[in-house]
């Protein structure tokens, strides 16, 4: 497994639930701010529609999937397209540590929602670092 290239981090971006937005924003925060040199994101739908250009550099590269709910759309789709999934993160697992939290809606997050999103992003970043180290 090569880790000279960036780790692919793919969010489900689910439209219907706030957890889909949290997954999306957590991944953006990770690849833009926390570890921009080590991780990148890709359009999940673009990979699934199967264009050669989309799959180049994705196939068999280490991936982390981040899913908003138990439907696990990112994990399922990435696995189906041959991604080498190193970690399947679930927003709900983090939400279970924040009983009573009101993170917002699928359109907009509350400050509480952003705080939890940053927690998820930190977890992703930690995992990116671990995978990079494992590959060396």
């Amino acid at each position, binding site marked *: 497994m090569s880790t000279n290239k960036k780790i692919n981090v793919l969010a489900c971006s689910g439209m219907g639930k706030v*957890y889909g937005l949290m997954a999306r924003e957590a991944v953006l925060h990770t690849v833009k701010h926390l570890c921009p040199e080590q991780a990148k994101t890709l359009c999940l739908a673009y990979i699934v529609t199967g264009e050669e250009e989309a799959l180049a550099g994705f196939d068999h590269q280490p991936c982390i999937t981040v899913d908003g709910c*138990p439907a696990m759309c990112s994990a399922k789709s990435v696995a189906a397209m041959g991604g080498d999934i190193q970690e399947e993160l679930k927003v709900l697992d983090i939400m279970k540590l924040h009983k009573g*939290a009101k993170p917002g809606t699928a359109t907009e997050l509350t400050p509480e929602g952003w705080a939890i999103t940053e927690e998820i992003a930190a977890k992703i970043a930690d995992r990116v670092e671990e995978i990079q180290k494992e590959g060396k």
Partner: protein
Amino acid sequence: MSDKYAVLPCNGLDKCAGQMTKEIALLLCEGTQNEIICPVFYRVADARYDKIAKENPLLVLDGCGTRCASKLAGEKGLKIFRKMTVTEEAQKRGVTLPTDTLRLGDEEIALCTALEDELSKEEIAAPVQVVQKVEFPAPAEYLIHKKDKFIFRVPAAGFYFSENDCWLQVIGNRARIGITDFMQQSLSDIMFFTPPPIGAELEQFDEAGNVESGKAVFELVCPVSGKVVAVNTELLTAPERINENPYEQGWVAELELTNFDEEKDFLLNTEEYMKILKKKVDEFHVNKQKN
């Protein structure tokens, strides 16, 4: 008959109630053959405690509503014989647990002794209360109501329902209860489950535990009177089972019925519940738009 129990305290270090579970466990084990399971060690090493936990009736002691010990038992696939949550017991007895110290004072020690006494008496009265296993068959067929892209399922036969969106499946004198597909969809992803206590004697329309999602807390309104003889411990660690399969793997509790013949007049059959379901679905849709 077993005269030995496995005792699993949560041993939570950051709350008085957690500290009390350790004290209760020590009291239960002193001078007896009962054995304490260390929750921290059990998490990292199955081998040490698996045999003890699986071969002896398991007493689970949780400090608070986070129920770490119950969750651990669920993760390890253990059948819980009896469980107790210290904060709930304290509340029942009107005892206020301190929040400014983790040390146990006289009042807390007295409560620990009382709770240990209660548990020990139950052991003497019924040392091995093996709950007779009853098979609850899966619904052979579901009726469907569609609204937009949403599909709501209701078992075609063999189930009763309440207007509070709970279901009941009766086999002999035993019944399982749960929440309906409509309600689990309304709640969306369920993240927390608080079961009714085993042994609780519930009247019809009493609260029988609750589930919590990001949207709401839903209290199950018990559709019938009965004694709680089992709860679905899998839901403690995987409450999403209710979303995945509300009428089968997502069952909440089993009751020994006490007055079903009279109470079933207050329940709905499939046809009656479907009418209510359709109305609720339409109202939900209208309210969603208004909000």
